[in-house]
């Protein structure tokens, strides 16, 4: 019997066109993804080959995710179709066994589903064999690459999701429940993504994700590019556990389904049917007279009908179980995400309203699902229950039906948003935060979110009306939204083509909605006109009565073209076109617009034309004297003044190469020299001019260059492309807006694959460490060494303008605030200009003025910053050298960017990273406010006191030394557990960083601007270094390095100079450390295999530890080779302290010279666990297996 049903299922499905269409769509998607740029799913970056197993695996996993949709379509109807086609009564009365019926249907459908799913590997396989593929970006063809991930991920996923959809279809007998199931799976998936962000919960996420994507990512997260090109996807570890778990769940579901499924056609309701109260009064129908009721058909009647219908549809949606399920699922997801609110290093931030709004935006996906699903449901409501003929014959104007459905949905959104606001406030309250800013909630959700919903709902309604087939309508709507997201890849990059473009931007407490409001409003007008136009068309074509054919609907629709409807169509067309023109005028005429191809072409042309001037000798700036007038309310500024340029070469210079800023808002009003000159050559498209001096600048001689530049904001551009540096409140920009000298190599295209495609030669990221040209320029470029700095700033009344230097004078003139700053010693040629309305906190540390400028209300962490500055100044001036300035200032800038940056005596600090951080428990949470402050203060030494050469390894001097310095400040302030936790994050980020390296991983001493090396790896390396050598020794090396290079002009030091000092403090026995840490990429695989203890006597315990230690050396793509080990490594034993927490009772470095090791250690209190390198000082890809709990055993 099973066989018959199974074969019948196959036969039945074979005849369904849909299955072939599914196959074709998935196949095409996969094929296009690997052969063209039109479709992008995952894909290879940098040195990873395009058909590397992990790349194909990832793509198959992603596409497998989409297969869930098909799974719901195929598996959901396997039993359901008997109910939908009303064949169940016939079928269930035949002598089929339930088990055979269910299993036959399930396995038959599953086989079909898997055949459809085979389109994924087949598509990728054919795509990879496609003749247009570049051979040097491919690995040799390997069948396993395609079919292994298919078997590991797709097959179990189809089994599991198939079981869910099969069972929900069979048990609920309703198709909508199947879709709801799909949404639930999605929630589970997204929910795990927020877990995954926290490194301490990655394992849980890897287990919980039903699709195995997280497990896959977790297992392969640290794979280096080399490993990515060679390793096949393994079926072990968390991937195996995850698969077993979810296949198990699938089996469980099938079992439950078997017992819960009933062959009865009519089922007993779960709920008791309410007894209907019998009316005692007997009514005689014959005697009833139908009273006369006045019928109205006036305009006001129609309005009241509209209102009634709106409320009616609103209630209808709210009664839908799937709707409630979606809403509840969405809110649950928000609450889960609220647990890890805005975390950085595991530390939360205050639940400010904009933070909560960011959280609530997670609901947008659910809004989108609701809008697509319920526009369809409502458009089809009457027809799906077969009430349409009655309703359609009612004396209502044609637009009322559609518009009331729209309004009903709008009302749903409005109520849901109110619910979201409430949820947001509850979350705020649960964090003990009571500063409710209803205006921001309303201002964002009832504008941006509602606009987005209106646009998508009306568009989706239009699609449903025009397509006039419910399921095809859903498909077209979804396909349209997907298509739109590919528009920019098809060359339609302009926001006028991006449906729903024009966001309200990032909200900042400092700048509120800022300049985003204008473009947002115009784009909304434009899109609203568009969708209302579509809506009017939909009214014309909407089916009323029994006509479905488009020609007949047009025949009926023509009659609906009343004057008001025509007026609406004309008006919306006019508004759409004219607002489109107005936007175009603003974005493309008033402002410059360029698409990706144009920008790339400019980059290429720039390099091809001007690269030859890269090392043309130029004078250097020695003095900067500027007057900068900022007009925040207009978003303009002007800068006028002069540079003194000095010829520091030994040859006369007569050609001056001036690079102006290429931004379209920026104009050079004049630029002149104090001696006779002419223009030798001008490259307008690059804003690059070569001036010829009649009389060259002699070596040692100087000239003065006067200039004025104006930054003028005209009209608007789309929010995302707008300038967020010069703004209403919180302007922050640096000297990159001002003219500079010579060719700017930073403007070149950097990715080697892109360069090859465009016919450019391969490019080194930085100059070699011993390149003499590199040694002559500092990390801030070759425009200057040290400069004398003076600046007069002015800004609008009420704002404070800040630049490096000391305030000489402050006055008010013409209702503007003026500030005169001057630095009393030469500083580096890198300065910030800031203007905002500030509160100030001032304190003093040893005659040094400390100031924090912050936005009103953001005083949560100001004291921490003060403390951070003080502690850092104390430590650095004691251990390295005195602080060179008499003042140190931190100033807040809006959260359009999240960083802090160190300028001379000036540290701009983003609103988004420190000012709203919330450190709950200083013994548990990493206080990153304090840490970042210490890091930026350290830059006053490393970067400002000592400028390094702009060559390979440079960031090891400024960034890595600052990391170390800050870490030492942290170490003296907080518990070892905090430091350990911090380093764990750093290790994770280093390993992740090297996994996505695009070019080559460098050893620390030759780092090429790779953040994961000069920040994260450096933290680990320097922390271990001071552990091996002693903090004082490392500090001594730093101090000597500082002494040698402090305030020096070119030539500048390199990492070799620091290593020279470090070598001096390193004993010979530890010399290997320098090679391991700085000169090579060295990793360890340390693992405790087993550990036991026995009680030897009173307060005497013997611990026996069996551990393996391996030392590996990696090349630049991360291929590891084991090398012999002869290292000192920590062995530690933990006991419990009085508070019951783990504490080290033994920690000592042991010399380890072989892989397998056994240690016997005697301790004085009861040991709990033990391990090798328990504090994770060495870089180890599996740091979780270093320690193990101890078993009691008599040895």
């Amino acid at each position, binding site marked *: 019997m099973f066989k018959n049903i199974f074969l019948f299922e196959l036969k039945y499905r074979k005849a369904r066109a849909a299955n072939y269409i599914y196959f074709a769509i998935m196949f095409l998607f996969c094929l296009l993804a690997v052969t063209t740029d039109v479709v992008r799913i995952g894909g290879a970056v940098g040195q990873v080959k395009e058909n590397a197993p992990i790349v194909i695996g990832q793509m198959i996993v992603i596409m497998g995710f989409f297969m869930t949709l098909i799974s719901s379509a195929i598996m959901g109807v396997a039993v359901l179709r008997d109910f939908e086609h009303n064949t169940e009564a016939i079928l269930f009365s035949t002598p089929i066994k339930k088990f055979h019926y269910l299993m036959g249907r399930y396995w038959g459908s599953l086989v079909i589903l898997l055949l459809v799913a085979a389109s994924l590997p087949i598509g990728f396989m054919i795509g990879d064999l496609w003749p247009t593929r570049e051979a040097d970006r491919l690995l040799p063809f390997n069948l396993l690459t395609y079919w292994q991930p298919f078997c590991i991920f797709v097959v179990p996923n189809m089994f599991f999701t198939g079981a869910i959809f099969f069972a929900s279809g069979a048990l609920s007998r309703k198709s909508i429940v199947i879709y709801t199931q799909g949404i639930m799976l999605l929630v589970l998936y997204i929910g795990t993504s927020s877990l995954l962000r926290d490194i301490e919960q990655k394992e849980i996420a890897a287990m919980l994700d039903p699709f195995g994507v997280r497990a896959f990512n977790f297992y392969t997260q640290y794979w280096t590019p080399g490993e990515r090109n060679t390793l096949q996807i393994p079926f072990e570890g968390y991937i195996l556990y995850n698969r077993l778990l979810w296949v198990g769940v699938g089996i469980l579901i099938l079992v439950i389904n078997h017992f819960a499924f009933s062959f009865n056609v009519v089922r007993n309701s779960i709920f008791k049917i309410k007894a*209907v109260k*019998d*009316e005692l009064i007997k*009514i005689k*129908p*014959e005697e*009833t*007279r*139908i*009273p*006369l*009721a*006045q*019928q*109205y*058909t006036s305009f*006001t*009647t129609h309005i*009241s*009908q509209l209102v*009634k*219908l709106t409320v*009616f549809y609103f209630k*209808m949606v709210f*009664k839908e179980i799937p709707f409630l399920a979606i809403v509840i699922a969405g809110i649950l997801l928000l609450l889960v995400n609220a647990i890890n609110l805005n975390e950085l290093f595991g530390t939360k931030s205050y639940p400010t309203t904009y933070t909560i709004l960011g959280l609530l935006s997670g609901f947008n996906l659910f809004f989108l699902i609701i809008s697509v699903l319920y526009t369809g449901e409502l458009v089809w*409501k009457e027809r799906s*229950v*077969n*009430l349409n*003929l*009655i*309703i*359609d*014959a*009612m*004396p*209502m*104007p044609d637009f009322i039906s559609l518009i009331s459905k729209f309004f009903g949905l709008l009302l749903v959104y409005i109520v849901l948003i109110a619910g979201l606001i409430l949820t947001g406030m509850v979350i705020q309250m649960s964090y003990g935060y009571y500063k409710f800013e209803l205006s921001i909630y309303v201002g964002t959700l009832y504008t941006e979110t509602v606009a987005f919903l209106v646009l998508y709902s009306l568009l989706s309604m239009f699609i449903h009306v025009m397509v006039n087939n419910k399921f095809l309508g859903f498909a077209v709507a979804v396909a349209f939204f997907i298509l739109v997201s590919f528009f920019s890849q098809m060359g339609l990059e302009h926001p006028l083509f991006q449906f729903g473009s024009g966001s309200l931007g990032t909200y900042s407490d400092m700048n509120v909605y800022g300049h985003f409001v204008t473009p947002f409003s115009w784009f909304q007008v434009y899109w609203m006109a568009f969708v209302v136009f579509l809506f009017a068309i939909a009214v014309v074509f909407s089916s*009323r*009565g*029994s*006509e479905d*054919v488009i020609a*007949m609907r047009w*025949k*009926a629709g023509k*009659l609906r073209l009343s004057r008001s409807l025509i007026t609406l169509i004309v008006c919306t067309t006019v508004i759409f076109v004219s607002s489109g023109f107005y936007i175009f005028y603003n974005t493309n005429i008033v402002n410059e617009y360029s698409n990706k191809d144009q920008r790339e072409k400019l980059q290429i042309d720039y390099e091809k034309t001007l690269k030859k001037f890269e090392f043309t000798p130029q004078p250097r700036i020695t003095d900067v004297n500027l007057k900068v007038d900022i007009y925040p309310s207009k978003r303009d500024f002007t800068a006028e003044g002069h540079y003194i340029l000095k010829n520091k070469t030994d040859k006369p210079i007569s050609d001056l190469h001036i690079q102006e800023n290429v931004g379209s808002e920026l104009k050079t009003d004049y630029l002149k020299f104090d001696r006779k000159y002419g223009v030798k050559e001008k490259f307008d498209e690059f804003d690059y001019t070569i001036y010829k001096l009649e009389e060259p600048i002699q070596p040692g001689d100087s000239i003065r260059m006067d200039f004025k530049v104006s930054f003028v904001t005209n009209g608007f551009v789309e929010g995302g492309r707008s300038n967020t540096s010069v703004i209403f409140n919180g302007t922050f920009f640096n000297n990159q807006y001002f003219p500079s000298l010579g060719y700017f190599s930073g403007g070149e295209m950097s990715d080697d694959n892109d360069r090859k495609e465009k016919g450019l030669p391969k490019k080194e990221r930085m100059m070699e460490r011993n390149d003499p040209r590199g040694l002559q320029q500092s990390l801030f470029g070759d425009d200057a060494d040290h400069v004398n700095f003076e600046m007069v700033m002015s800004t609008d009344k009420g704002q404070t303008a800040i630049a490096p230097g000391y305030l000489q004078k402050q006055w008010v003139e013409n209702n503007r605030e003026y500030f005169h700053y001057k630095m009393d010693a030469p500083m580096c040629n890198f300065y910030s200009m800031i203007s905002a309305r500030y509160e100030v906190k001032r304190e003093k540390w040893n005659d040094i003025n400390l100031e924090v400028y912050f936005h009103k209300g953001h005083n949560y962490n100001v004291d921490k910053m003060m403390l951070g500055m003080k502690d850092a100044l104390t430590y650095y001036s004691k251990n390295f050298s005195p602080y060179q300035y008499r003042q140190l200032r931190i100033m807040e800038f809006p959260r359009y960017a999240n960083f802090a940056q160190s300028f001379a005596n000036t540290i701009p600090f983003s609103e988004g990273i420190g000012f709203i951080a919330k450190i709950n428990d200083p013994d548990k949470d990493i206080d990153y406010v304090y840490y970042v402050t210490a890091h930026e203060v350290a830059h006053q030494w490393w970067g400002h006191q000592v400028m390094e050469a702009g060559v390979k390894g440079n960031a090891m001097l400024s960034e890595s030394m600052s990391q170390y310095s800050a870490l030492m400040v942290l170490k003296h302030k907080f518990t070892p557990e905090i430091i350990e936790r911090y380093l764990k994050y750093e290790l994770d980020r280093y390993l992740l960083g090297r996994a996505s390296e695009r070019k080559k991983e460098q050893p620390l001493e030759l780092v090429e601007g790779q953040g994961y090396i000069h920040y994260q790896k450096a933290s680990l390396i320097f922390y271990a270094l001071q552990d091996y050598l002693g903090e004082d020794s490392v500090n001594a090396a730093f101090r000597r390095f500082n002494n040698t290079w402090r305030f020096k002009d070119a030539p500048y030091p390199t990492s070799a100079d620091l290593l020279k000092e470090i070598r001096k403090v390193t004993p010979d026995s530890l010399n290997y450390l320098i090679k391991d840490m700085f000169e090579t990429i060295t990793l360890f695989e340390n693992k405790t295999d087993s550990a036991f203890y026995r009680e030897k006597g009173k307060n005497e315990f013997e611990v026996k530890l069996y551990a393996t230690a391996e030392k590996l050396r990696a090349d630049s793509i991360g291929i590891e080779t084991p090398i012999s080990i002869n290292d000192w490594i920590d062995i530690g034993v933990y006991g419990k302290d009085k508070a019951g927490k783990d504490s080290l009772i033994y920690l000592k470095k042991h010399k380890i010279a072989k892989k397998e090791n056994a240690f016997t250690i005697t301790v004085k209190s009861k040991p709990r666990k033990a391990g090798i390198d328990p504090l994770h000082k060495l870089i180890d890809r599996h740091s979780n297996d270093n320690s193990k709990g101890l078993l009691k055993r008599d040895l």
Partner: protein
Amino acid sequence: MQLVIQNLNKTYSNGVQALKDVTLTINQGMFGLLGPNGAGKSSLMRTIATLQEADSGSIQLGDINVLTQKEEVRKILGYLPQEFGVYPKIDAITLLDHLAVLKGISNKAERKGLVEALLQKTNLWQARNKNLGGYSGGMKQRFGIAQALIANPKLIIVDEPTAGLDPAERNRFLNLLSEIGENTIVILSTHIVEDVKELCTDMAIINKGQVLYKGSPLDAIAAVEGKVWTKTITKPELENYRNSFSIISERLIGGRPVISVLSDQQPDGGFDRVPADLEDVYFTHIFGSTKTEVAA
């Protein structure tokens, strides 16, 4: 007021011609539209009810052009489609009230009175608070009737209204219709000849989109009066009779075939003359039209 249908044609996109040159004049009172399944009754009624477009022809209701002035027609229309559903999670009183709003009964008190009266009239009063999803076929049908009577319509179109009603309900409904039909145009489609005979002053028989007969049921009966002959035969004989006579109906009585034949004289000795019935008229026309078609 008079409903005048002239030369109405309609062909569906699948090629089926639903209405062929239909011309009818319908006066106030009950008008019966008789025809087998698929004859085009519903198509014609939907077209009159503004729910379907015609390819050509015209429909005029008093001063109103039904095909273009749909809004005007809908104001005075009460329509019960052949098949319809309801929102399952809503009770009868709520939905009827909802429909009354759509009909333009804006006054709340009036609407309440009307809705309650209609529910009583259709004997749904006891079940008024029950969700419509739980209604039986007959109850649902009565609900459909109730909604068609909202706002005192001048044109009532009821498509197979008695389908699914038990005999008592059917009687009650027919009485109700005849009560209303006095100064209203009521178009009633059915394939149950009895309905027409009992109620209608005027009728039309249509089949395959064509009007085969129009006139009063009494005239129709009179036209065949005395020409209907029946005979009780045995089953093996049936084929013979079929070949030699124009049989208008065959039925079984007590398990034996009884055939009716339309003939001016007694066809043969075994036939008895019977009083003509509307059913005979119906079968005559349906049968005749098939015959014509076959001949053509």
